[in-house]
């Protein structure tokens, strides 16, 4: 894992000092709230419904155990004992005091962490594949490139006040696990016919109000040119992106207005000027960074283990967990374990201080002291010996992190919604919980198989509802909360945007709506067909028809007593 050197330490330390003084000036009224706002956002501090929220950067989702323990400490000392994992591989704390926020950053700095550019109209934390370095389908480990992008984008002087936020995702495997198609820039590591490493460059993807899938503007960019090419894209966007209307300010709107071909032409023209300049990456630099991502000291192990095979046969619970939560590893005798932060009754992605400490200890004991955050709001121990899986499972189970539901119906992506977020039109957590409760039966979930259910409390799409196989969007109608349902969205290699099935529903109707969607699937599926395949084959019509065929009870009316959470 990347470790800071004296320069990284210095930059982060100076940032803490700068921010501390900004907070001081705000409290002394030397800065107005309007002036302070972009400054605090560029430090991950949002004003939320009840309190400030602090979003801490987890570069490309990688954490060391001391960093995880620091989260536990922050949760206890400055928050209410828990944190919230996000779809951008970060962690958020929801109950922060402005006055204490500089101290939190100072504490984070001691474990090589910060909240730089986790919000605001700048280049955000670059995200990547949670299985980077271990995935069986990996072409090239994307993390060294992600780290080079992190450094380049940190306090880039020209791009700190862009028209809008800017997100980059990078994937190095056959299967895209980084949602690259719905980012402002998506990078796919590829090898050309000569075996040289480069990037396929996608631009202009995004969700929100206008969901768009990114367009390829370059099929092959030699890796040495990554930063200069990004600079060219950003310069075109900074100058020509719309600033008159914040809803049209994302790069996706510019790319669409110009066409991908014209946008690419402008980028190439801009790039000519800086191509091969000093910012061109060097083999030395790649090697310096790559040495932090060398494989840990794996043992030479057989592909499986007699004890493990016996445990698997004897214990159905363990077998279920293996099936869903344990992923193939490229090294013999090892596996990647996904810790499900999706237990029924708990808001998706919420994790307590005790669980964080537990995960840190577990990582030290069984996975070389490393943890990753997934964009589905779960955690990963990437390097667990197969012979130790049973022990790990038992320990994880006791902490409520072993629900065998990864990729299943209750592995819901869900934004904080109306319970925390001041932008929300509707709550999302109670909807996730009501659905999880209704479909708590694991046999049923396993029968349904892989399905992606994503919930956002408003059109900003923090919960990725557009790319959910089933997407739920909170909408406001005459001051009350309603939910619009879409199906057919997908992430990964075949990213698609879901289609809305019809008029929206009340919170109480939602579990039945999901039940009806699933029953159409169960009736219509061919063998081996996943929910998404059936939707793609049949279109939305049969689903729509059945969901609206007869009235769905609304339960009690919406109001104070309607909220279960």
């Amino acid at each position, binding site marked *: 894992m990347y*470790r800071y*050197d004296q320069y990284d330490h210095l930059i982060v330390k*100076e940032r803490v000092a700068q921010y501390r003084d900004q907070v001081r000036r705000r409290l002394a009224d030397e800065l107005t709230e309007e*002036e302070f706002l*972009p400054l605090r956002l560029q430090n991950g501090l949002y004003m939320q419904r009840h309190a400030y929220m602090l979003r801490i950067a987890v570069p490309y989702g990688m954490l060391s155990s001391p960093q995880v323990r620091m989260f536990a400490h922050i949760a206890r000392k400055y928050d209410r004992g828990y944190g919230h994992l996000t779809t951008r591989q970060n962690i958020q704390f929801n109950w922060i005091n402005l006055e204490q926020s500089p101290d939190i950053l100072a504490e984070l700095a001691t474990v090589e962490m910060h909240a730089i550019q986790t919000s605001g*109209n700048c280049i955000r934390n670059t995200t990547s594949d949670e299985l980077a370095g271990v995935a069986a389908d990996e072409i090239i480990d994307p993390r060294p490139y992600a780290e080079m992008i992190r450094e380049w984008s940190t306090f880039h002087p020209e791009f700190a*006040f862009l028209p809008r936020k800017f997100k980059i995702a990078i994937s190095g495997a056959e299967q895209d696990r980084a949602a690259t198609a719905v980012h402002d820039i998506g990078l796919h590591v590829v090898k050309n016919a000569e075996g040289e490493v480069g990037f396929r460059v996608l631009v202009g993807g995004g969700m929100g109000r206008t969901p768009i899938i990114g367009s390829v503007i370059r099929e092959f960019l030699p890796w040495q040119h990554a930063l200069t090419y990004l600079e060219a894209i950003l310069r075109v966007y900074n*100058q020509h992106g719309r600033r008159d209307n914040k809803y049209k300010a994302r790069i996706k709107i510019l790319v669409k207005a110009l066409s991908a071909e014209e946008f690419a032409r402008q980028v190439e023209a801009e790039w000519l000027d800086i191509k091969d300049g000093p910012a061109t990456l060097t083999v030395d630099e790649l090697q310096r960074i790559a040495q932090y991502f060398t494989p840990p000291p794996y043992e030479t192990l057989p592909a499986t283990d007699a004890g493990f095979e016996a445990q698997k046969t004897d214990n159905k619970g363990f077998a279920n967990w293996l099936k869903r939560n344990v992923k193939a590893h490229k090294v013999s005798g090892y596996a990647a374990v996904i810790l499900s932060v999706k237990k029924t009754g708990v808001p998706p992605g919420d994790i307590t201080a005790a669980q964080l400490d537990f995960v840190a200890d577990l990582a030290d004991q069984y996975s070389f002291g490393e943890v990753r955050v997934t964009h589905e709001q779960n955690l990963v121990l990437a390097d667990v010996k197969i012979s130790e899986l049973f022990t790990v499972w038992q320990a994880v189970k006791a902490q409520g992190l072993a629900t065998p539901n990864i990729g299943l119906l209750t592995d819901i992506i869900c934004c904080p919604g109306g319970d925390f977020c001041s932008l929300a039109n509707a709550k999302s957590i109670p909807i996730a919980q009501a659905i999880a409760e209704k479909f708590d039966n694991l046999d049923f979930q396993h029968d349904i198989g892989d399905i992606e259910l994503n919930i956002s409390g408003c059109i900003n799409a923090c919960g990725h509802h557009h790319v959910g196989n089933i997407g739920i969007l909170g909408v406001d109608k005459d001051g009350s909360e309603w939910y619009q349902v879409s199906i057919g969205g997908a992430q990964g290699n075949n990213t698609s945007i879901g289609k809305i099935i019809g008029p929206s529903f009340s919170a109480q109707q939602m579990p039945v709506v999901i039940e009806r969607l699933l029953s159409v699937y169960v009736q219509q599926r061919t063998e081996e067909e996943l929910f998404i395949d059936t939707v793609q084959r049949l279109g939305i019509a049969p689903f729509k028809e059945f969901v609206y065929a007869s009235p769905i009870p609304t339960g009690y009316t919406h109001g104070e007593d309607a909220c279960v959470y």
Partner: protein
Amino acid sequence: MPVSTNIIKNREVVADDWSVLRLNEGDSADSVSVPAGRVIVPFSVWSAQRAQLLERAEIGVWLASDAQADVAKDDLARFSLIAVDFPKFTDGRGYSIAYNLRTRLGYNGELRAIGDVLRDQLFYMQRVGFNAFAVRADKDINDALKGLTDFSEKYQTSWDEKTPLFRRVQRQAVSQD
């Protein structure tokens, strides 16, 4: 007589005797009268009144945030000063304009940030090539001066730093244990 105000120039607070001409409602670029003395005129006025303005010893222009640096390309040598306007401090187009004026067009005279210029942006502004800052009048300019030294290292290139950190120094992780 323009009132002398203070600006930051080359990292010092100094008196300034330039005045900035801004068009009022009803003014037009070709008919507005440019006062005597050191005046920074809108680029549109420069274009419209180029013939007369060329006769003046010292003239400055300012570019609006939606301008491209290229518009000034042919006359760079004529200007004692180029300013870039920040209508709001959150409008970041001026950073790319400055970068292009310096790096692409090779402008090496005074480059001044005007408009909504605040302390917490100065560090970035100097990196892209500004060497003068007309800090917003209601702010303490001596306080703003401190903004220039917020950081002592930077990772990436810009106008002020032609070599990225990875080429400039030998980097090595330091153990925390």
